[in-house]
């Protein structure tokens, strides 16, 4: 991992002190809400449905055990609403679950006034939880209940382990994400982490790019398989070697989800590694000047790239040439790359001999298979190959019954830190799929790690399977959501508990977003669920065939809508009907997404629409989903 220098440490501490000054002036009435808003956002503080939400930056997903322990402390000591607030919030969520439009001053749902047609599935009740950290698709960690008055204290605590919320929100360059297996993947050409770190530093508090037209997300991978969904980003970077063996970047621009899902366009096939900051500067400067500011929904760079196309590319090239002619100040010196790269050497591990481990694992598997098939399944699903033949990458599953996808309690965060120390050289990574990955596990320690993880409830062998779903916090926490995501996630998790069935269904990306902002990446799900709102009621659009650009999913693309929106009570049945169709149509060994592409979506759509019981008759002559209400995130 990157080792913070005195300069880096002082910088994070100065940021925390600056934030305390801003917060103090705000609470004193010297800094108005509108003026404070972008300042707190660029420190990760949103104001949500019931309380502020903090998004802590985890640069390219890497955390050390000390940082995990501080995140545990934040969850334990600060992620706590007052009992009154929690009671009021739960009451409001119960009203929503009963199909009632919540009022500003929520009163207990004293009667069963929800009409029969919208009465929720019993599982659709929200269970608000506190004292949790939440792993996000952009590899960050969020908290939902910290009072704003305590926000500066939390920033200081985080700064003690070099954590912060810099640029995790706001119209600026956001935290840079990467492949969860960066530096360890067997299919990697170049380790992207040193470049990601140099880019993190370059983008941090960039004075010119703090008030862009909209947020700006960069993802970087160095592997042949795209596990970072780079073509769904404002800028997607693939670091590689050209035919001459020189390292450089293939640069994509203008991808994004939201209400206009757009796959990024290749703008330059090769930018030499040491020029990447100069080139990014050109991309962002032209966007800052040209991006639309008159319409929030058209402000992302994807709209600019679509509208201007080659003219934008030409201007980026012209600006890049001007930067070079001016002295190319942000050319990365070899010495700087070497300094940063030295932080990312493989940690010392007491590794076993590979053959010995293989033999030992084979023995254990044989014995275990007789009374516990779960270990073999865990090896199959949660353990990945590693660049180093004696090491493995192990994913701790945070997809289990009773917790929202990606939620971790304070104790579990502490326990994860223990596991990282014991098995993974003190390092863990937040994954795009909202789990934690231990990147440096010696293969002969797998049985012990499995036993420890299982005791903690983090060894569910479901990585890549249906219940390893992505879901945003949705209408239980987020002020922008049109509908709740978590009860849908919970209901699907409950329905698909049987491991035999999950393994039989195989690898499926199920992604759930509570609104069109698409934080739950529904566009890229093989099965996507999107919450929409009509007349204050929750409805769900279902899409099929989306791809994040991974080998399994195929070329990056947005899924296609199945039909009018479904009622909450229908969604689980729709998922089941779609999967039944797959099981009927599949060839032996064929994945869901391949069957869908081969057989076409029609039979799947038919099956989905056949389960309608609430929405069989379009209500009041309208079809659901036609009047989708769009909002936009802060």
């Amino acid at each position, binding site marked *: 991992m990157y080792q913070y220098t005195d*300069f880096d440490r*002082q*910088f994070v501490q*100065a*940021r925390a*002190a*600056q934030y305390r*000054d*801003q917060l103090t002036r705000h609470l004193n009435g*010297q*800094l108005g809400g509108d*003026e404070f808003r*972008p*300042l707190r956002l660029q420190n990760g503080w949103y104001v949500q449905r019931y309380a502020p939400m903090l998004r802590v930056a985890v640069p390219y997903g890497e955390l050390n055990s000390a940082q995990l322990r501080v995140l545990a402390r934040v969850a334990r000591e600060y992620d706590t609403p007052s009992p009154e607030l929690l009671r009021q919030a739960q009451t409001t969520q119960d009203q929503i679950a009963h199909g009632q439009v919540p009022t500003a001053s929520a009163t207990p749902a004293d009667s069963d006034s929800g009409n029969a047609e919208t009465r929720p599935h019993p599982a659709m009740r929200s269970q608000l939880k506190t004292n949790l950290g939440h792993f996000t698709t952009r590899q960050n960690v969020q908290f939902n209940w910290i009072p704003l008055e305590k926000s500066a204290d939390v920033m200081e605590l985080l700064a003690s382990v070099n954590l912060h919320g810099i640029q995790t929100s706001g*119209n600026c360059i956001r935290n840079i994400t990467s492949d969860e297996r960066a530096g360890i993947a067997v299919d990697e050409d170049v380790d992207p982490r040193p470049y990601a770190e*140099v880019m993190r*530093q*370059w*983008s*941090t*508090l*960039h*004075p*010119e*790019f*703090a*008030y*862009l037209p909209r947020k700006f997300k960069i993802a970087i991978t160095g592997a042949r398989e795209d596990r970072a969904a780079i073509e769904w980003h404002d800028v997607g970077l693939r670091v590689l070697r050209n035919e001459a063996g020189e390292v450089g970047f293939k640069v994509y621009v203008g991808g994004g989800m939201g209400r206009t899902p757009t796959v990024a366009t290749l703008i330059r096939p090769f930018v030499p590694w040491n020029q990447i*900051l100069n080139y990014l500067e050109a991309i962002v*400067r032209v966007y*800052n*000047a040209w991006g639309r*500011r008159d319409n929030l929904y058209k402000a992302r760079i994807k709209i600019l790239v679509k509208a201007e196309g080659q003219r934008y590319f030409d201007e980026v090239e012209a600006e890049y040439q*001007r930067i070079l002619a*001016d*002295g190319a*100040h*942000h050319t*990365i*010196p070899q010495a*700087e790359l070497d300094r940063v790269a030295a932080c990312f050497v493989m940690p010392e591990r007491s590794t076993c001999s590979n053959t010995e481990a293989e033999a030992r694992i084979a023995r254990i598997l044989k014995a275990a298979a007789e009374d516990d098939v779960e270990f073999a399944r865990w090896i199959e699903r949660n353990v990945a190959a590693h660049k180093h033949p004696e090491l493995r990458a192990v994913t701790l599953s945070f997809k289990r019954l009773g917790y929202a996808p990606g939620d971790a309690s304070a104790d579990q965060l502490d326990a994860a830190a223990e596991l990282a120390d014991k098995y993974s050289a003190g390092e863990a990574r937040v994954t795009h799929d909202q789990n934690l990955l231990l990147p440096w596990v010696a293969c002969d320690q797998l049985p012990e790690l499995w036993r420890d993880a299982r005791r903690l409830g983090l060894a569910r062998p479901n990585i890549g399977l249906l219940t390893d779903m992505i879901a945003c916090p949705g209408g239980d926490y987020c002020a922008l959501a049109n509908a709740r995501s978590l009860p849908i996630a919970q209901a699907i998790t409950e329905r698909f508990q049987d491991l035999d069935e999950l393994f039989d269904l195989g690898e499926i990306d199920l992604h759930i977003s509570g609104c069109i902002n698409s934080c739950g990446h529904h566009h890229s799900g093989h099965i996507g669920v999107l919450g929409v709102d009509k007349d204050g009621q929750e409805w769900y659009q279902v899409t099929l065939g989306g791809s994040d650009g991974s080998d399994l999913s195929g070329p990056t693309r947005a899924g296609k809508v199945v039909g009018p929106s479904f009622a909450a009570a229908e969604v689980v049945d729709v998922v089941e009907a779609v999967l039944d169709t797959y099981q009927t149509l599949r060839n032996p060994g064929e994945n869901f997404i391949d069957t869908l592409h081969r057989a076409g979506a029609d039979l799947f759509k038919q099956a989905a629409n056949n389960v309608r019981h609430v929405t069989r008759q379009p209500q009041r002559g309208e079809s659901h989903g036609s009047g989708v209400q769009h909002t936009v995130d802060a």
Partner: protein
Amino acid sequence: MTSSIQVLTAEQAAHASDDRVLTLDNSADAHGVALEGVQCIALHFPKFTDGRAYSQAFVLRRRGFQGELRATGDVLVDQLLQMQRSGFSSAVLRADQDAALAARVLAQFNGFYQGDAVQRAPAFQVA
């Protein structure tokens, strides 16, 4: 170049203005503006969250403009540091802003990673 951005009141700015102040629209391309004889260029912030003027300022400094670069419009004390680093040499604060805070908010960091209009080289080049 001045080391610290000069904070002007509206009256001071009005007094300091003369015919040689060039006012640049946010949509103007700073690469094409004629700079001969210009002593002061006023760049506008229609809202403090509209960041186009930062890039305009940077480009003007890169072109070698040595005169006064003035921030006008919705100019808040909490953005002075970004303005200074992007090449502004003066700022006309919005009427409700407390100019006394300027010194404090400008001194909150000892250094930055990336180069800017004032300190062209990034930290890794300087070190």
